[in-house]
């Protein structure tokens, strides 16, 4: 009995992600691409977002072929790559992360650059700089369970799974079982930045998932761009993720003041 209990606690990762859902509601998670608009902007933008009142941060690892992302995020990735950003350099930049940032921090990236870095060394490095979770859109769940979960868990990292309006109830239950940070609800059948605002059929999907009594918290992403869509999302989930709208903001004005105004305009 004692043995089994010990094993299950060992397999469970508890980190800042779990804490933030315990302590706050209407979580605002903001995505930005590492190395954009300038190579060394990553820590600076993270600090500005924290000061402005964001609750969670998602740092994008740029990739040449981001399949699930729209034009806005792809362009920011291309710019970041042109600026010379790589996983090695990013992890180097993030060495000072925890000097400044208390918020939970996720990294979002496609599988190939992580594979080339090496999954184990990558997770080790993430643990070292105290990254709390990873979102890898093209890592299928079954593959994760078979080949990655053990490594992620050993380094205290949550893997965040996505669900979409077309994900079957059975699969959602399975994903809920396998998740232990939060579930990323993609608001519509789309790539990032494809649609603005939320329609009634999306709200009914949010409601449907809300009624499922999942054990994990949920954040809604894709199509969240302003105060209205953010507060709509918060009505059905524990918060929301803003990506493309923030990248567009950075493109126009990436100053601390502009970032402060952006976050304030979302949270009000």
């Amino acid at each position, binding site marked *: 009995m004692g043995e089994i209990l010990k094993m299950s606690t060992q397999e469970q990762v508890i980190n800042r992600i779990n804490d933030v859902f315990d302590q706050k509601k209407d979580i605002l998670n903001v995505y930005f691409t590492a190395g954009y608009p300038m190579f060394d902007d990553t820590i600076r933008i993270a600090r500005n977002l924290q000061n402005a009142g964001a609750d969670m941060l998602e740092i994008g690892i740029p990739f040449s072929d981001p399949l699930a992302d729209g034009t806005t995020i792809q362009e920011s990735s291309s710019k970041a790559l042109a600026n010379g950003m790589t996983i090695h350099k990013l992890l180097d930049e993030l060495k000072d992360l925890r000097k400044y940032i208390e918020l939970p921090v996720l990294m979002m990236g496609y599988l190939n*650059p992580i594979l080339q870095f090496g999954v184990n060394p990558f997770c080790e490095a993430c643990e070292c700089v105290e990254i709390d979770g990873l979102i890898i859109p093209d890592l299928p769940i079954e593959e994760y369970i078979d080949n990655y979960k053990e490594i992620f868990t050993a380094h205290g990292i949550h893997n965040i799974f*996505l*669900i979409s309006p*077309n994900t079957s109830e059975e699969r959602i239950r399975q994903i809920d079982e396998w998740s232990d940070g939060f579930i990323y609800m993609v608001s519509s059948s789309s790539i990032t930045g494809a649609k603005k605002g939320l329609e009634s059929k999306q709200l009914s999907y949010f409601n449907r998932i809300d009624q499922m009594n999942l054990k994990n918290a949920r954040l809604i992403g894709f199509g969240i761009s302003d105060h209205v869509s953010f507060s709509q999302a918060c009505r059905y989930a524990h918060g929301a993720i803003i990506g493309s709208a923030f990248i567009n903001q950075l493109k126009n004005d990436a100053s601390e003041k502009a970032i402060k105004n952006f976050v304030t305009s979302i949270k009000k």
Partner: protein
Amino acid sequence: MKYQVDERGYYGKFGGAYIPEMLYPNIEELRMNYSLIIDSDEFKNDFEDLLKNFVGRPTPLYFAQRLSEKYQTKILLKREDLCHTGAHKINNAIGQILLAKRLGKEKVIAETGAGQHGVATATVCALLGMECVVYMGEVDMNRQKPNVERMKILGAEVRAAKSGSKTLKDATNEAMRHWINNPFDTHYVIGSVVGPHPYPDMVARFQAVISAEIRQQLQEQEGKNTPDHIIACVGGGSNAAGAFYHFLDSNEVNLIAAEAAGLGVSSGKSAATTQLGKSGILHGSKTLLMQTDDGQIIEPYSISAGLDYPGIGPMHAHLFDAGRAEFFDITDEEAMQAGVELSKLEGIIPAIETSHALAVFGKRRFGKEEVVVLNLSGRGDKDLETYIRWGKY
């Protein structure tokens, strides 16, 4: 069945379905249904009927006497260049669009590099009354104007892929994004043996008509149903997959793949994936890929747009890894010379993709009594401008 796909969608350590969750229902629908549909008698009848009456199959297995004399071996050309639309691509387009209809889809999307797969897809969509959108890199649209117009005449909409390097890999990204945004009524016709499982297997099975015919024609013409060697060019690798298919597990048949070396394997301007690539993930499958140490995809180069892809189908990655196939890297120059040689010796102007396969004769000796089948995957009409620019004929 050592070299066929396994039940998890892998060829050895390559393959799989590395897709975002948003595509999971689309891929799952295909995976659950494709074998059942392809193996049904009704589907087979429709497929075979169109291959015969619309495409003009079976294509001849033609004894190339003068080429054989030159290289002191027995060369048989599988004449896929005689297919309607000028290449083997139509075999797969017909198969997938018939399948899409049975899945209740109304719209079809496709990616295209040089435009051959786009033209084949637009052709079959016209034939079967489906809406068709083809994604093509903006750079390729400028390079391949006649094929853009062909697709438009056939009623397809051609959309420019303006992201990234604006070539085939970006057109593929855009088509996948379109599919994520339109999951219900749309089927994505991938043009090669690449992409997430079940695509590599599905495309290989539609192209396997090539090796099925080779087998039968060899039996009739040579009195035995296996050749000593089969040569095909490989970009993504659909014509090679089709030519190899029924011989994969016949170890007495030597498989030979010709990759595009561009200006030379170490020139920085190449598409020789097995020489330059490492295992990685792109467009939904684990395979050999040309990439930087940091895992960013490298834009390949070849004079032939159809071989200008940074990856290779997972089946071929496995054939390479397992040492089942010989791989040759052929430069632009070697390919162009081989294309002109075939034109002058046999009266056939081949596609430049195919010319890479033909150039293998200059690089490797074959026995006088050996039977060598070369898959003549396409005709050279589309490449006339490239031949003219090269000029040495």
